[in-house]
């Protein structure tokens, strides 16, 4: 349900940078979204098609680059993917772990003409 406000934020950032670059049209928007960020691609695209109407970004495609969540064991420094369920380090069993990827939530670039 919070996809609408997220989509509004994306539009605002896109239009500002498109204007700064004197773009005629925004073709593609590249987003980087980590596994831990709760965003549904189809839902963002749905809202995008509505709120971007009559702007230079109206027909833009949203490209979602998903980043898998990855952990680093703080004891033995083993790296492993979060996968489906959070697990202690599969190498040494420690719960002393840290996320090193998967929390990304940013707009990387836009393709314009």
């Amino acid at each position, binding site marked *: *349900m919070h996809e609408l406000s997220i989509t509004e934020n994306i539009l*605002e950032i896109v239009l500002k940078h498109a204007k700064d670059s004197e773009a005629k049209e925004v073709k593609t928007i590249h987003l980087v979204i980590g596994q831990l960020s709760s965003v549904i691609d189809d839902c963002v695209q749905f809202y995008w098609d509505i709120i971007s109407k009559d702007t230079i970004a109206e027909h833009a495609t949203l490209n979602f680059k998903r980043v898998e969540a990855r952990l680093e064991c703080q004891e033995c420094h083993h790296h492993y993917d979060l996968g489906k369920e959070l697990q202690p380090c599969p190498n040494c069993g420690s719960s002393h*772990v840290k996320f090193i990827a998967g929390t990304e*939530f940013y707009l990387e670039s*836009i*393709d314009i003409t």
Partner: protein
Amino acid sequence: MKQNVQIIQNIMNANDTVAAKTNQRLSENGIFAINIMASPGAGKTSFILKTIESLPESIHLGVIEGDTAPVTIDSDKVKDLGIPVVQINTGGACHLDAPMLDNALPHLPLDELNLILVENVGNLVCPAAFKLGTHASVLIASIPEGDDKPYKYPNIYRGIDVLIINKIDLRPYLDFRMDYFRQGVEMLNPGLVTFEVSCKTGEGIDAWLNWLASKVS
């Protein structure tokens, strides 16, 4: 001619900018503010009411209640105890955001307060993404919700400063594996300050109030 423009900007930037301003404004007023999050029914309002009941005299509290439906059920309970309260109705939105808090704050007597508790909308997903500008985030988990919540909603456990485990009086009746729960929390938020409480019996509330008093000047 197609051209790629590099941006690299946090999508939450607009919200976070308002949150940073709110945080500064509260700090300048000598107010410590807490964002209270939980699933529906975990006991957010009961926890606030229990806190009010035993509040040290040095603490001057204001409350902001966030609800998705246009109701005043929670804020009426707070008002009945003589505490200044503002109700935010999000109109269906699943979380509070920084502009909503910014708009609500002028409705509280800020000059008279040194603590504000903000009760977020009951939800373990969306509130985690929206900073409000508060100084600390508290998550209330409760025994009947089950011991798997850190595994199923990892994001909300990562961004909090205090964890309250509520309804601890129900433990004898439910299969809640505290070790499993705590291990999940430890992996997501090592060394997290945690209080086991019961808003029904009052168990553990004193420890929470001591923490609170240490934060409010």
